[in-house]
C-alpha cells in the first residue's frame, strides 16, 4: 500500500493509523498538524484514523516566516 506523504509516494507495509505514522516519522510528541485528503485530522482523532491506499497526507509544522 502507498500513500502520498507531503507530496511524495510513501510505502506502508502494514495497516497504520495516523498516530502510528507520526510515531514512525519520529514526530511523536512534536507540535505538528495532520491533514488527510484536505481535511484536518484533530490530534484527538489521530489514533483512530486509519490510513488507506492513495491517501494524501500532509504533516506540517511551524517554521520561521514573515
Amino acid at each position, binding site marked *: 500500500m502507498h500513500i502520498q*506523504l*507531503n*507530496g*511524495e509516494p*510513501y510505502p506502508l507495509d502494514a495497516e497504520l493509523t495516523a498516530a502510528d505514522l507520526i510515531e514512525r*516519522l*519520529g*514526530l511523536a510528541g*512534536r*507540535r*505538528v*498538524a*495532520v*491533514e488527510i485528503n*484536505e481535511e*484536518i485530522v*484533530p*490530534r484527538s482523532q489521530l489514533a483512530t484514523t486509519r490510513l488507506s491506499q492513495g491517501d494524501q497526507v*500532509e*504533516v*506540517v*509544522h*511551524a*517554521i*520561521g*516566516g*514573515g
Partner: protein
Amino acid sequence: MTLHTDTPFTIAGRDFSSRLLVGTGKYKDFDETGAAIAESGAEIVTFAVRRTNLGQEDGPNLLDVISPSRYTLLPNTAGCYTAKDAVRTCRLARELLDGHNLVKLEVLGDETTLYPNVVETLKAAETLLADGFDVMVYTSDDPIVARELEAMGCCAIMPLGSLIGSGHGIQNPHNVRLIVEQSRVPVLVDAGIGTASDAAMAMELGCDGVLLNTAIAHAREPLRMARAMKRAVEAGRDAFLAGRMPRRQNADPSSPFAGRING
C-alpha cells in the same frame, strides 16, 4: 503637566502594549530569532506553516523559541497563491496551535513581486471569517479593497508599504493615509519597511502598528535594529498623537527678535 495616555492597541478583542509585530524568517539561527524578537518588544509574532522534513533529523522547533505562552502567535499563509491553499494553511495552523483563531492571511500574485492577489484574498477571507477565524489581512494599498475587507469582518487591514522583503519603505503614503482615515479596525503597514524611519513614518501616518521581518533579520546587527524598530514605532506613534507642527513656506525664528544687541 502630564502626557495623555495612548488608547489601547486592540486586535480581535485583546489589548497589546507593543505596536510592533515581527516575523521569524531569515534569521541565522533560533538563538538570533529569539534574541531579536525579545529586543523588539513585539508581543505578536508571525510564523509560516510548512511540510515537515521527512527523514531528516528534526532539530529544535520554532515554537520552543517563540513560546505560545509568552507571545501571541500569528500563523501566516505566506507562499500561498490560491484562496484554497490559504484556507487549508489556516486550518492546519489552528490545529497546530490547539484552536487558536488569529491568522495573517496573505494570498500572493506571483513570485517576482509577491504582490497580494486581492481577488483570491477576498475569497479566502470570506471562507475563513465564516469558519470563525480572526483575520488580519495583507493587502494592496487600494483603499477600496481595504474597505471591502473591513466590511467583510477582517480584524486588521495590513496594506503593503512596498514589496515584501524589498526594504523600499512606504511608496504610497497618501493611500496608506486614506486607508487609515476610513478604517475603524486597526491598520498596520505590513511589508516593505527597510529601516527605522520607515516604521516611524507608518506610525506618523496614523497607522495602528507595523509588521516587519527582513528589516531586522537582514540588518548587519539584527538585535540593534530590533531595538531601533521598537523605538521608531514608539516615536512615530508619539509624533502622530502629538500632532506635527504646520509646514511653513519661510523661516520662523525660535528666538525672539526683541532685545537683540545689534538692534
